[in-house]
């Protein structure tokens, strides 16, 4: 093996056909020729006198496609807003989530005293409790999505790139995970090991979520490792790590980002279901799923059921729309005709 040659490597990336190659004016330049000298020099190129065209990367195109996707953009704004409210919960909530006020039991929603979502059976302000519940949900959702994507990406990369026994083992493990009743196993795990703690529950969720990403990453690696530009990089003397991280992973980020985004939504939903069944995050930590239970014990107080559930529904719906928008933007070939 010769030493890796960074200049050659970089030149390879700019080759037409390499998916991270810059794209000019919306169409990929085919045939190369004199227009292709551009890439190293600047962001913009002049190939005809007075006419300047900005060279955009694939990511810039994806960003443009995403911004034009109206539903996804609106959803992104809404979900960012909700998550920010959750993140700044201690500054926004008018009350502490565990502040009891026995003079104000089961009060319907009102602007008086800032009880926008009413109060529960021991007079705690429900608006504050829902906001803190969002905080819990978003922590769990983002943590689970990030960690399980990272683990799945690494495992899937190793299995897909090297193949052999690692690949076999991974596929058998994920096959087995699929034959087990997921929710039941999750419930058992969180009942016996979770102890109602936010981080332990998150780790249990990660343990079940990483396999999805791993399978997708493996599939991508299997097809991308046969591409000409990987062969060319090998011929240029690039090592395995360099090929994986510089040539393959950037070209498969589309599906991974989409799966990761959708994982946020499903982690939030699963966590809420666990909390609802009393086997997930336990009080005093407020969780949206556990808040809904208070609605079940007080069926005449509709606000106890409606607000936390509606918040959950809106978060999940918006995250799903963002995920769909990202799929359309990053991975136009994979677009489901919807």
């Amino acid at each position, binding site marked *: 093996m010769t030493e890796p040659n960074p200049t050659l490597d970089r030149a390879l990336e700019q080759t037409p056909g390499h998916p991270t190659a810059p794209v000019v004016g919306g169409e990929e330049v085919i045939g190369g020729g004199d227009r292709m000298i551009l890439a190293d020099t600047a962001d913009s190129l002049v190939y005809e006198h007075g006419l300047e065209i900005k060279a955009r990367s694939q990511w810039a195109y994806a960003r443009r496609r995403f911004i034009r996707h109206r539903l996804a953009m609106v959803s992104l704004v809404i979900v960012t807003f909700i998550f920010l409210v959750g993140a700044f919960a201690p500054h926004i909530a008018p009350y502490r989530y565990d502040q009891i006020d026995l003079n104000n039991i089961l009060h319907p929603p009102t602007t008086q005293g800032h009880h926008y979502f009413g109060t529960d059976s021991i007079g705690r302000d429900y608006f504050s409790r829902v906001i803190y519940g969002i905080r819990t949900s978003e922590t769990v959702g983002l943590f689970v999505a990030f960690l399980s994507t990272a683990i799945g990406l690494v495992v899937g990369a190793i299995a897909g790139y090297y193949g052999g026994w690692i690949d076999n083992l991974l596929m058998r493990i994920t*096959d087995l995970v699929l034959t*087990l009743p997921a929710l039941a196993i999750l*419930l058992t795990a969180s*009942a016996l090991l979770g102890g109602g703690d936010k981080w332990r529950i998150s780790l249990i969720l990660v343990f079940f979520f990483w396999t999805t990403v791993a399978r997708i990453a493996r599939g991508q690696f299997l097809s991308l490792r046969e591409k000409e530009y990987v062969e060319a990089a090998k011929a240029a003397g690039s090592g395995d790590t360099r090929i994986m991280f510089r040539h393959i992973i950037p070209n498969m980020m589309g599906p991974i980002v989409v799966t990761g985004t959708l994982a946020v939504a499903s982690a939030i939903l699963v966590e809420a279901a666990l909390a609802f069944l009393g086997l997930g995050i336990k009080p005093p930590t407020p969780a949206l799923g556990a808040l*809904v239970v208070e609605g*079940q014990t007080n*069926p005449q107080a509709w606000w106890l*059921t409606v607000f936390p559930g509606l918040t959950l529904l809106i978060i999940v719906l918006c995250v*799903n729309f963002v995920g769909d928008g990202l799929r359309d933007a990053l991975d136009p070939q994979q677009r489901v005709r919807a």
Partner: protein
Amino acid sequence: MLTFIVRRVLYSIPVLIVSSFLIFTFVSLAGSPLAKLRANPQFSQVTLHHLEHQYHLDKPIPVRYAYWVEDVTLHKFGSSLLTQQPIWPDLKRVMAHTAQLIITSELLALILGCIVGIYSAIRQYSAFDYTFTSLSFLGFAMPTFWLALLLQILFVDIYLKWNVRIFYTSGLNNPGHGAWSIDRLQHLGLPIITLLIISFALYSRYMRASMLDVINMDYVRTARAKGVPEGKVIRRHVLRNALIPVVTVATLNFGALLSGAIITETVFSLDGMGYYFINKLNNLDLYAIMAWLLVTAVCVIVFNLIADIVYGYLDPRIRYD
């Protein structure tokens, strides 16, 4: 076809053995069957030691697994350590209830989902299509427990306000009514509707996507070009091929749901598999939980097998890989 079936059946046997071992190892490592008794001051250390010995809990896991397999195969899952009751009669009862619930709701969801999916695909981008597309997005994002709870609250309110009993909101049936009585149906109504909404969202989307995949195929264009009437094109050429993936997904989903709609059954206190499981989990009755997990794993594996065979039957290309 026969070799295909035999091969698939043989393949699922090691899967079953490995997953039963996994279930046992996982539950045994995660908790002790005696945990509940240890917390109870009535049981002395001596009694606990005695129980530990009697149930082979002092032995290594592979040995305990062998004892468990013996219990499962020869003694119909044995009996629970905590209650000393045999496990199988309870499990059989709740399975029957769950089967009744799941079969009804899944069949309804499949029929409705297919009709809506087909129509949405034929009239793509019509108002009908957009309405049901939005509704199915809502269905995907809907937390099941919240939907169930809203329905429950709604029908409790209807009963309290107008004194009309359309559906009961909890329980399986009133005493003295059988499995196919109107009373049972009134109890199953809300759980069926809950599951129906969730599964309908899935099936209608799936059917639509599958129809659209097929409708643009060359052979469909050929059929139209040679003058086959549109209705016949849809029925003969599109539908028959589009149904293949939907039938497969429905079979898989069915197997997974037989483990009980855990959440729905819990909300409506319906004496089915899911409700049983949650009760046992809250009591930390580990032998009952392991039996439940094993039965469920068997259901999933059997329905995976059926899905494979159905797929192989509908699409002959699959048989020769």
